């Protein structure tokens, strides 16, 4: 028997449901990434945890910074930055790995970028759960402002995905975009208060550091969850970050849509 009926759906060629495709692609990438198992996920935790462990060793044991809850401080920063670097860098790799599909089947190309960012978002949420395990084990009290984390994650998602759109738009024509961006991610890691508390930075550099919306997000998350300080928990700060992240997202998507028309030839 043939697996179809005589019915022909969508006579007018209606709009297809690309959101479903995005979700399927994201969950399948997630499955492949973690080999469809819990152990697979735990394995992937090794990278951020090793990074955390190394930095913790250097800055807590060797340098001996006296920051309250430094381990939580550091872990949160590493997890958030890991998400940003993963979304922006992996989207280019995924675009390349899906070249054979993009050359043969038509669907809007943003699906690939959004799917890859959703995959990383799932990882981020799992990592946040791990963070909370550490959080409660260390006996830190949960503050009411913790709820703001949700808003910050939305902002970070928009920012990272917007950047991924820009990079992926350029990538097929300029393959070294990936290498160049890797360097910027490294730079950004040190230009963002992840390893160090913002308090050790001389005041006159604060303006410069907080030109970077990612730095505002990381600092905001810290203040919301761990403290000290509440300077970044203001509505103004959210407005600035949302404007920057939202603007980048819209601009990135526009550039991407323009450039992606020739992907089938360039990839």
């Amino acid at each position, binding site marked *: 028997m043939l697996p179809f009926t005589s019915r022909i759906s969508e006579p007018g060629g209606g709009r297809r449901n690309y959101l479903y495709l995005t979700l399927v692609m994201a969950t399948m990438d997630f499955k492949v990434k973690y*080999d469809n198992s819990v152990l697979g996920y735990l394995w992937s935790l090794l990278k951020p945890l090793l990074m955390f462990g190394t930095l913790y060793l250097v800055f807590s044991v060797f340098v001996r910074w006296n920051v309250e809850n430094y381990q939580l401080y550091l872990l949160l920063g590493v997890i958030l930055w890991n998400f940003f670097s993963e979304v922006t860098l992996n989207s280019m790799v995924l675009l390349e790995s899906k070249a054979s599909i993009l050359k043969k089947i038509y669907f809007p190309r943003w699906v690939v970028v959004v799917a890859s960012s959703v995959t990383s978002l799932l990882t981020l949420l799992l990592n946040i759960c791990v963070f909370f395990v550490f959080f409660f084990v260390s006996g830190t009290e949960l503050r009411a402002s913790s709820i703001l984390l949700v808003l910050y994650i939305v902002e970070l998602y928009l920012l990272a995905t917007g950047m991924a759109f820009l990079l992926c738009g350029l990538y097929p024509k300029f393959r070294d975009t990936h290498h160049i961006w890797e360097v910027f991610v490294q730079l950004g890691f040190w230009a963002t208060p992840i390893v160090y508390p913002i308090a050790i930075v001389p005041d006159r550099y604060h303006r410069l550091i907080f030109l970077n919306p990612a730095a505002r997000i990381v600092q905001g998350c810290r203040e919301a969850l761990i403290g000290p300080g509440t300077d970044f928990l203001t509505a103004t700060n959210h407005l600035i970050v949302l404007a920057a992240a939202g603007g980048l997202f819209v601009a990135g998507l526009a550039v991407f849509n323009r450039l992606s028309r020739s992907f089938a030839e360039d990839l």
Partner: protein
Amino acid sequence: MIRLEKVSKRFVLPHERKHTLRQRFVSIFQRNIYERFYALRDIDMDVQSGEFVGIIGKNGSGKSTLLKLIAGVLEPTAGSVIVNDGVAPFLELGVGFHGELSVRDNVFLYGALLGMSRAEVRLKYDGIIDFAGLRDFVEAKLKNLSSGMQVRLGFSITVSVERPILLVDEVLAVGDLEFRQKCYNAFEAFKRNGRTILFVSHDLGVIERFCDRVALLEKGVVKSDGDPKSVLAIYQNQG
């Protein structure tokens, strides 16, 4: 209905392809040598709903480019491509497969890629698996299946996409006798259902058997378009 009006597709083939900023920087003072190459030139073609059109021609005559333009994967350099109905955009079997995923997951992924909704895939899932004869392998990773099994699965999903227009690029090149028979049955059913099919193949026997109309491409232009017998005769006579 598909309408192509004065469609041209030009590929720019640099003698040395520059893929990176570094290469561009290093060669700032070098003159770029390009070769412009028309894969298709001024194609005018109308395909009515329900037609089964075969497309033949030598390698490099522009057959696949034509299908890709209709599928929307490529944009024409000039002219316009108008497609009024939903296209089932498959050009080759199994392009979207992922070897690390199970057969079940691949059905959902490939189905979504071809434009099926979740409900649609669920509804057809059993039919797809049975038609492919893979009932015992749904949990197996795709890479562990034989290539014949993979082709069967790809075909099974592909034919279950119910869009008015189907684009078929050389699916019969692989597969055994039984598989071919299944393909023929599917084509018969498509014809009965009144679907529009564009069919690229080098298998002239199949072209003659199914097509209402055949277009012969040569170096990017339509050399002949019409009744299968006469077009096939032209193709065979040119040697």
